[in-house]
């Protein structure tokens, strides 16, 4: 089951870290970074059904 209710302990801190990770990157580098990040998180999630639900939720 995909969690769509708030689940981050420190949303503001996470958001800041996420944006900071992109600092100094070109558009191309940012896109590539995002792709790597999504793939890393997908592996952590593992569950195929959850991943499919996430792909749908983000549409």
């Amino acid at each position, binding site marked *: 089951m995909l969690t769509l*209710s*708030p689940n*981050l302990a420190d949303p*503001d801190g996470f*958001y*800041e870290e*996420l*944006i900071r990770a*992109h600092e100094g990157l070109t*558009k191309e580098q940012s896109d590539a970074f995002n792709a790597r990040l999504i793939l890393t998180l997908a592996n952590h999630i593992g569950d195929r059904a959850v991943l499919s639900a996430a792909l749908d939720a983000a549409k």
Partner: protein
Amino acid sequence: MVATRYKTAFQLYPYARVEAQDHAPVRHPVVIVGGGPVGLALALDLGQKGTPALVLDDHDGAGLGSKAICFAKRTLDIAHRLGAGQPMVDKGVVWNVGKVFYADEKLFDFNLQPDAGHRNPAFINLQQPYFEKYLVDAIHTAQAAGAPIEIRGCNCVTALENHGSYTSLTVDTPDGSYTLEADYLIACDGARSPLRDMMGLSFDGRVFEDNFLIADVHMKADFPTERWFWFEPPFKAAGQSALLHKQPDDIWRIDFQLGWDIDREAELDPARIRARVDAMLSSQAGYVPEYELEWTSIYTFQCRRMQKFRHGNVIFAGDSAHQVSPFGARGANSGVQDAENLAWKLDLLLKGLADESLLDTYATEREHGADENILNSSRATDFMTPKTDISKIFRNAVLELANRHAFARPLVNSGRLSVPCNYAGFDLFGEDALDEAPAGTRPGMPCPDAPHGDGFILDHLGGGFTVLAVGCEATDVTTHGIDAKVMQVKTASPEFTSRYLGEASAAVYLIRPDQHIVARWSHFDKTAVARAIQTAIGKA
């Protein structure tokens, strides 16, 4: 001559020549420069404790314009202790609900109403001049009861010389200048602090490249008493964000985020402002209600602070020491907490009950408060004003998702509203020896309110050290000249129980004069309380 930099809303302390202007410099224990919310709260707190405070202000009353408008519960609790809280709440607009929009769509609403059992609401909106007026009223009441407070209007400090153990000030007045001396000089003279400049001290941080237009409009409108905030507002020329919020006297605060590259002069043209306001109001009401522009201003965001708030016997408090962006109401609210933190420490020092080092804890505790405010305020500003393409992409992704999925809502940041400072872990705090007790009353936290008898528990804490005991007997504890009075809670309200006892059947709390919790125990042990008092005054 003292230059008039702004118009005043209320004349509160008209210029009156004092004898000292004709004599050799008089030495004062505490001179406070700046009669804003911070300087006035500090003077009132000191005066009520019997410590003389002289306030110098370069005008004769509260500056015109709403300026600070959102006052938080913690500030109201402090004002209540000082005897100024009730008129603020009576006059203020109490609000709990906020709505966040993304263009035409409402993303969500939030409700700030805290759980029941507090004297004061989570927030009120009140124009700053009223806040100052009620503090001055309370000062007059305190003066009548013998409190050694003096306010000198139209007294503008033009030069200072620090002699180490004291500071001489040159003060300009309508009758020419005179000199006075201060053992302790407290700079509450605002973000542009002339005293800070005179001392050559820096004020470092970030300037956010954005301009915000404030328009306070006077109108009879039946919009609800809610905070409405738009990202990418749908109405014309509103900029990247907009805010609508009600104040007393049928005044509405409207903010437009205009961006960086603007012509300030042109944007302040009333016709241009009216066009923007017309567009906003008609999009909400379906027509343009009759209104007048009450006060307008353009400001930029800055998040910065002085590296150190204490420079020997010159101490900085409020905006002179730290400045944040306004979304979050962390300016005046943190400044009043500065004043309260400083008042009792300065008082003990001047009464010979504490050492100079206690003033260093003012600096460390409030620098921590400022850092927390700057962090929250910077994050909100970065969300509202994305700096790069990718941060805008993420920001808008959050907003789009927030409309559909609850998980994204906590990421939406239109300002994180001021919460009381927690000093857990700092030097002046003692042990937490109450098992399975509520987290909200750990050492370092400010005392939460709770119903007690016919009133509220905070009313019984006063402005000294208190030993709060419930479920067990305790006595006054005296050590190092500090007399901590016992406050015995015989009948605990359900709210008191849940906030102070949790699962415990008995508890003893040591509470310092600013109503922050020093230490707590499961039973009364006189030696342990005495030790905690020593810790609390820096003499452990």
